């Protein structure tokens, strides 16, 4: 059997440079991280965190763009991204609540805090409120065992939680947001 190459339909290959999905600031920060590592791909986690810092989460487009920038396969970077608890591969709310569910918080009753947050915000683990203010996730031991139960929202740790004060904290955060707007 013979193929006549000229009669084959033309396939248009479009090369998309995913770097266009990153801002100049993001690229500069990532290149700085690259400069202190031995290989480009070693900056992968830092790069994911930089993009997440700017955009709230890591979309597929961002992930492909970072992989391109670091000269590594997308699948490999995806393997790294999904390995970690603090890299969000789905859109999250403005405040991501990480409630500690490890043993010290278990012994001191984090379950009540869990129920309170769930009732107050109307969402369970892995969900985001319709107004996109809060996402509710678990976290392994936050290292606040002597002041348990404990949670982390953004970069802030909250300790000695009670059903009463956790509602206050969440209300405070919700109001903080509306003031900024």
């Amino acid at each position, binding site marked *: 059997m013979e193929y006549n190459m000229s009669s084959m339909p033309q396939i248009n290959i479009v090369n998309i440079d995913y770097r266009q999905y990153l801002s100049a600031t993001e690229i500069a920060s990532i290149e700085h991280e690259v400069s202190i590592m031995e290989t480009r791909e070693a900056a992968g986690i830092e790069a994911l965190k930089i993009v997440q810092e700017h955009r709230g989460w890591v979309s597929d487009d961002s992930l492909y763009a970072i992989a391109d920038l*670091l000269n590594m396969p997308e699948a490999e970077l995806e393997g790294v991204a999904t390995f970690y608890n603090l890299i969000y*591969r789905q859109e999250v709310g403005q405040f991501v609540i990480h409630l500690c569910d490890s043993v010290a918080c278990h012994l001191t*009753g984090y379950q009540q805090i869990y129920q309170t947050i769930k009732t107050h915000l109307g969402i369970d683990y892995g969900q985001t409120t319709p107004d996109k203010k809060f996402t509710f996730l678990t976290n*392994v031991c936050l*290292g606040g065992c002597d002041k348990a139960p404990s949670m982390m929202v953004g970069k802030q740790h909250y300790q000695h939680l009670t059903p009463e004060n956790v509602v206050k904290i969440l209300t405070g955060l919700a109001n903080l947001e509306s003031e900024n707007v």
Partner: protein
Amino acid sequence: MSEVIRPLTHLVNLQSPLSLSDYIREGGYQGASKAIHDYSPKQVLDLVSDSGLKGRGGAGFPTGMKWSCVPMFPDTDDSNDEVPEFKYLVANADEMEPGTFKDRYLLEGVPHQLVEAMIIGAYTIAANRGYIFLRGEYHLAAKRLQQAIDEAYQQNWLGKNIQGTSFSFDLYVHTSAGRYICGEETALINALEGRRANPRAKPPFPQMSGLFGQPTVVNNVETLSNLPHILKHGADWFKALSPNSDPGTKIYAACGRVKSPGLWELPMGTTIREVLYQHAGGMADGLKLRGLLPGGASTDFLLPEHLDTPMDFDSISKAGSRLGTGGLIVLDDKNCPVAMVLNLLKFFAQESCGFCTPCRDGTPWAVEVLTRIENGTGRKEDLDTLHNLCDFMWLGKTHCALAPGAVEPLKSALRYFIDDFEQHIDNGCCSYQQQGFTQQNHAVQSSHGGQIHG
């Protein structure tokens, strides 16, 4: 005075840690200065070996011995040309062992101590570059460490030709993104290289071929923090800190429902009783001691009868457990032991990297069986299944120590709290539920809301 008995923590200030100049005023950087000006690397290594310092991350491996496996000392060795040019020192600050918060205290409270310690360690093994591998959740520690490192660069304690010597060393903070397995040293190295952080096979050991294929030493934060003081005061002083065979002090902690949870730097080998009753104030009102994990989630339960055991590596292992990180997790009589073990196993199932089958499949299997028992739908043969799982996931059958670590609390709970397991099965319910804790009946979920392990 307090430096003499509490070397690690006497300069801790959680509100506002000492700046470089204040740290120096309090006697800081004297150890590093002594090392790089007065001692050869070999002399520092000998001093640390003499001191008998053991790793504080959980395994208790002698630090001097760990370092001595690194190829070094071209001047005293005939195999000159085999000494690699690039070496790494990594501080393991990926503190994620449930019930452990000692490193956080040092990182947030006295960051310069770790920087000084890393200079000493790096000088000894002739490392050119160091990383502090910090867990992503410790944002405050990251900020303070970076500040300390910046100050150290400004004052020539880091960088090229440190303090006029020929020794150069660069130090960076790497913040991780939340995964327990990164605390395992070879997984940590993979994480630093930007790979998925599965542990590596050993050998080769990191001291020979670690980060980017170069000799690498990974030490725990508390271990490293001892170095400035050993350099400053000597090996004999360090040994005299403790009345028994394991030298130095240890940061012990207590959490759970005790009167005053917290952490305390005490002589290595302080008894469990002293930590629990004298320092943590005993059990909270109305509660009795049921048992405790002596050193984090991956250690075996001990009972009230073990209270007089000294908390050093040998004594705790003779009592049937491990010193681990030295943080007591205390189980009271109103908390269900089955629910506690279920919580621990859920943690290990979630944090299993999934590389080897016994761990990837064994830990969720144990969670499933324990959930059944806790919810009152357990069967008699479930206990046999749990015993079998303890065997399937034991040392030598898994890729790393995570699954055996999960087995430790499980198998000891089956031994000490077997009545509770049987009652759950016989009565078809958990008799602890009336105290208001709604035990979670929902399925185990990962943080993204999906079922773990497919």
